[in-house]
Structure formats: C-alpha cells, structure tokens
C-alpha cells in the first residue's frame, strides 16, 4: 500500500495546476464561444505533454503511469473542462496508437505528437450504457479486408478527426478491436453538428460507420491483444471521471470562497450549516471519488483481475458527485450563480455533459430531491 504521491505525480500535479490556472482557465469563455480551443492554448497544452501519453522516442512527452494521468487530467479540468477534454480526447487517440500500434502505425505519431493543428479522436461511446464488452460496433476481418459498422456518439472533433480511432468488437471472436480511420474517410457519416450544453471546444458529434478498409488499419494488426486494448479503453473512461472530479473541486472551492465573503443576515454565509454542509459533503464525496478512480486505474495498470463493473461504478460515482457538487456550488451563489459573471455555471453545464457521455442506468438511480 502506498497512497502517497510519488515525485512524478507531484511534479505533474504542480505543472498541470499552473497551466490550468494561468492558461486554461482564462481561456474558457473564449474557447466555448468559438467552439474550439484557442491555438495558443492548444499549443501550450500539446507542449506540456500532459494531454497525450506518447513516448518521447515518438516525439511525445512520455507516458506517465495510469494514476499520474488521472492527476494531470483532474488538475487541468480544474482550470476548464472544455479545453482540457478537447486536448485529452485528442491525445487519447495518440496514446492508444502509441501503446497498441504496429511500428508502421506508431511511426505516424511523430508528426501528430508535436502538431498544433492535428485533431485526433477515439470513437468509443455508443450510449445505451454500453461498456467496452458490449459495444455493438462490429469489426469484420475477412482476409486483407476489414469492415467497420456501427454508430458512435459523443465523438470528439467528429467532423475533422484524423486519426479517428474507432473501437468495436471482432465479429468472429468478440475481442475488442480498434481501427485507425479518419473522419473524412469514405463510409464515415458525420451527423450535422450542433452545439451541446457544454464542452463545445471538443466539437463532439454522432458518427455512423460503414467503412471498408484493409488490415493495415487494424490497430496493432490482425493479432492485436484485445484484453490490453480493453484495459486502455477502460482507462480512457476514467479520464472523464478525473475531469468530473477536477471541475467539481474547482466549483466547490469557488463557492466556499464566495461563502466566506458574502454576508447575509449579519454573517458570512459560510456560518450557516445549510450553506457549509453541502460544500463539506461535496468535498467528502470528491475524496471518495478520487480514491476510487485512482484505485481502479492502478489496478487496470497492473492488469489485476479487475471487474469491468469497477470502472462503470467509478465513472458513475464521479459523475453523480460532480453533478451534485456543481449544483450545490451554484446554489451557494444563489441568483449570482445563475449569471455568467461567475464561472460556476460553466462547471455545472460541463458536469452534465460528461455525465451523459458515459452513463449506465444500472450504476446509479434517480432520487427525488426529497
């Protein structure tokens, strides 16, 4: 048992926090308005090496361990979840290729890792609560030919991603497969893009696939290890949970700060337990969620016989926590939380967007407020 951060984690946390505070957070409104991360911010994120786990020999910033990646994403999302996840999701495609790709595939990363214009994506989610084991997107390998059929939702940079790594299941043996495509490939149908409640900097959309390609596009080739890929994909899901934790932590701190200065009925409102207790509870729950994601990520990294449901529950809990924490933070500001002079409303919306992206109705339940 070692629950202390190691040197790398501390260094990453410090770097990510400073980027989050100084670069990411100030650009949040601009990125949302533009529906894109400002070029300069994107460049700084790419340079930091925090958003794409690509080895140095392929031109990346190195591959930290699973827990360290969570720390980086949490701290960056503390700055702004929209900008952060745009970069993280783009970087995730590179990370998958770096880890599982054939030499030919990883070679392509050299350009990608340092490019400031490239936008990559993993097409993973399908809605319906489907985890990796249940994906309906099919990959049919027949000789040299590969056919990918399915529909993905919440695909970042849906219209422009290249590479676009599509995750599905091999129709013959059920193993998890990833296929390296591009949004502009024949057979990739991108729904008309609309804005969302939040995270517009990632330009997410729904994509329908009916693509025929060759086995060269199979990530890791014909004999790729489906279990290793599953572990990587599960890890990607935990990054969303880390973002929920980061944005919620920020919201709670913001609200707590407000509560210590705002006077009502003769005293700072932090003096009312009706105000302070929900924030304290949010903090307690964030603690629980953070420990859960780290523990599950660590065990994924170890290949420890981990039930897929552990990931489902960790993701679900982080979302539940963030939804309520951002809500209670907004309420702390009362009417002031509802106007865009304060950023709490961004975090409130972002939590909802992330919570709908990866959702399993059996992991949590609707509860009335009372």
């Amino acid at each position, binding site marked *: 048992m070692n629950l202390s951060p190691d040197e790398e984690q501390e260094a990453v946390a410090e770097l990510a926090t400073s980027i989050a505070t100084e670069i990411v957070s100030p650009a949040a409104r601009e990125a949302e308005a533009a529906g894109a991360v400002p070029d300069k911010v994107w460049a700084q994120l790419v340079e930091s090496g925090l958003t794409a786990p690509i080895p140095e020999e392929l031109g990346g910033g190195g591959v930290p361990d699973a827990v360290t990646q969570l720390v980086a994403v949490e701290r960056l999302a503390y700055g702004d979840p929209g900008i952060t996840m745009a970069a993280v999701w783009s970087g995730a495609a590179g990370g998958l290729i770096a880890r599982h790709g054939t030499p030919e595939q990883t070679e392509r990363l050299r350009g990608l890792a340092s490019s400031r214009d490239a936008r990559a994506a993993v097409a993973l989610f399908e809605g319906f609560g489907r985890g990796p084991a249940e994906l309906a997107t099919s990959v049919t390998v027949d000789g040299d030919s590969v056919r990918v059929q399915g529909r993905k939702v919440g695909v970042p940079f849906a219209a422009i991603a290249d590479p676009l790594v599509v995750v599905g299941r091999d129709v013959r043996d059920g193993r998890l497969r990833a296929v390296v495509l591009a949004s502009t490939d024949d057979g990739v149908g991108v729904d008309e893009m609309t804005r969302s*409640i939040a995270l517009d900097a990632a330009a997410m959309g729904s994509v329908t696939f009916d693509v025929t390609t060759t086995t060269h596009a199979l990530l890791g080739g014909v004999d790729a290890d489906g279990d290793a890929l599953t572990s990587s994909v599960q890890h990607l899901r935990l990054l969303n949970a880390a973002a929920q934790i980061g944005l919620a932590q920020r919201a709670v701190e913001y609200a707590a700060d407000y509560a210590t200065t705002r006077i009502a*009925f003769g005293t700072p409102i932090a003096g009312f337990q009706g105000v302070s207790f929900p924030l304290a509870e949010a903090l307690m729950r964030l603690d629980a969620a953070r420990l859960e994601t780290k523990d599950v990520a660590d065990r994924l990294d170890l290949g420890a016989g981990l039930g897929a449901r552990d990931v489902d529950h960790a993701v679900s809990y982080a979302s539940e926590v963030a939804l309520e924490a951002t809500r209670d933070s907004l*309420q702390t500001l009362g*009417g002031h939380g*509802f106007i865009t002079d304060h950023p709490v409303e961004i975090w409130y919306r972002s939590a909802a967007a992330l*919570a709908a992206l990866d959702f399993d109705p059996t992991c949590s*339940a609707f509860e009335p407020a*009372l």
Partner: protein
Amino acid sequence: MTYSAQLSKPLVDYARTLREWSTSEARPYARAADTDHRPPANWADVLDTCPVPLGRVDLPEPQALPDFEEGYWVRALVFYESLNYGDIWVHPTLGGGIGHLVVESMGTPEQLEKWYEPVLERGFTTGFALTEPGFGSDTSQVSTTATRDGDNWVINGTKIYCSGGATAEYVVVFATVDKSLGAKGINAFVVPKDAPGFVVAKENEQKLGIRSWVTSELVFDHCVIPVENQLGWTPDGAATPRRSGQGGALGALAHNRPNMSAMCIGLGQASIDVTAGILAGQKAGFTPQRWQAVESELERMNAALERGRRMTFRAQYLVDQGKEDRAVSAAGKGYAPQTVERVIRRCMQLLGPEGTSQDLLLEKWYRDVKIMDIFEGSGQVQRIVVGRTLMGRLVG
C-alpha cells in the same frame, strides 16, 4: 363532498388543450428564443393560434382566463404547468410583470388608481427591482438609497435581476431611507421609465437559462421622483401602509412560489415525455437489464413529479380557500424545483450525449429550471420556513 385531489373535467380539458397548443405551436420557437435571448418576433401571431384564452394583455381587449370551480390560484397552477410544458418563452409575452402586485399590496387608494388599475385595464409590463449585487435572500441589506429633497426623492443605487426592467412602464424600486433602521428603513418607490437618472445598464443579463426572459441591471443615478411615488404615502405624509417595505415585497411574491413550482413541473413532465418517446424507439439498443432500469427510472420520475404537483396544488388550494399556509407552499417549493432538476438531468443521461446536445430541448430546460430553484427563495429559505413551524424562530 369528500376528499378528492381530482381536477374537474373542464379544467382538465383546458389543461390538455393548452398543453397541446404549447407543444405544437410554442415549442418550435424555443431554441431560437434561447439563442436570441428574446421571444420570437412573431410571438403575437403564435399566441393568436391558441384555441383557449391565455390572459393576454397585448390585445385591444384584455383577455381573461376562464374561471373554474377550483378557484383562481389552482387554475393558475394548471395554467403555468400547461403553458410551460411547451416552453418557457411564452410566459413573459403575456405581460404583467410583478411591480403592480407590489402597488396593489402596499399602495394607497390613489396609488392603486394611478398604477394598479391601468395595468388591469390596458395591460402593460411593470418592473420589480429588489436584488442588488451585494445581496440575494437577505433583503434587509438593500443599499440603494432614497434621499428626501424637498418634494422629491432622489434614488441612488444598482439593482440586478429586475424582471421587465428594461421594458416596463414603471419599476417598483426598493430603497432605504435610513440605513440605520435596517429592514424597517426600506421603502418601495414607483420609478417611471422616463424618470431622470433611470439607467438601463444591461437590458438583458447574460444568464445560464431563461435567456428569453428579460431581466435587467438598472442603475439609479440621482434618479428623481416625486414624493408621492413612495408606496403607502400621500403628498401629505404617511398613509397607513397595507404592508411594510420588506413585507410588501415578500407579500407580492408569496403566492408565486407554487406558480414557480408549477412551471418546473411543466418542464419536468415535458422532459420525461420527450425522453420516454425517444427511448421507446431505442429499446432494442439496451440490454434487458438496462431496459428494466430505464423503465423503473421513468416510472419513479413520474411518481416524483406527481408528488411535487400534489404539494403545489395543496398550497394554492389553501390560498383559494382563504387559508394560505406559507409552510405548505414552502414545502412544495423545496420539493419540486430540485426534483425537476434531477429529472431533467437524468433524462439527458438516459439519452446519452445526444440528450445534452442542442438538437433537443432538454439541455435548455435544464438551464432554465435552475433559476426556479433560486427565485422566490432557495431550498434553504424554504427549509427555514418549514422548520419554523416546528421549532419557531430558533430556526434561522
């Protein structure tokens, strides 16, 4: 007649007609109203298509809402829920505002004649300016000042969240005549839109939701009004005010809590119905386990909404019976908005990322409904009201 929570058939029919109209005719403009931060330009034409009276004030003849045996306030709940089931943009186009309700609550007979009755006759929007950047729930902190200068009052200060602030004929402004008196120094003043020093600092504030509802930031910069514009006063001095300053403000809002809950419930029901409709077509995509969970969720959400509806009806039923109970309406307000927030959120989750996209209205309603959890008192305020019925003034 024995106990019954059932509405009469005429009211049920009215509700259905209104709901169907708001869904088919008003809802299509909802997205644009949000994006443009205003109702559609052709709003009057849209309203013209409604087969039942909406209580419009923009027509040559003000339009009364039909009467039902349930009474005025219960009818209002049905009206608000059904109207907002389509979308929230219609609401402010029906005019009114709440400034004149304060006049009605606090004014002298002369003031009622001047500022209240014309609203009933002609129908125009009246503004309300209470909240300031420095406070929210604690209305005793009003820092806008009214200083006597001969036959005038001179008002200075900034107000936010002024509903109809930029479009109203007049705004009822709460200001203190003597800060040292605390809440007792607060008075209400009728400030016409053309008063010197009346500045619309922001016509429509940038908000998370209800973007098509105009709420303004107003600045009163040495704004001069006649002394008789102080509600409850005559040019000769104090009349017997019907209610005091803070009380007047809260009195005017008191009956509105359940209305706010009813709007929420309209949005919650719309969200469930839209979601259930889409999901029904997607059943095959779910594993049997998950489909069971989805069905249970929808059922539980409907049961929860119905609970909020009952609480809200009870509150206004009591008002109609002349037995208003603040704790009852507070209970409904404590239950409904936050529950609806969770309902809409859960609906979006059930639908996946497409549920949070602007292709659907759920994400808008989720943003809209948030203010209803704050307006007319947050959950904390409602808990204080209810808690005091058990534990008296110790609860605060």
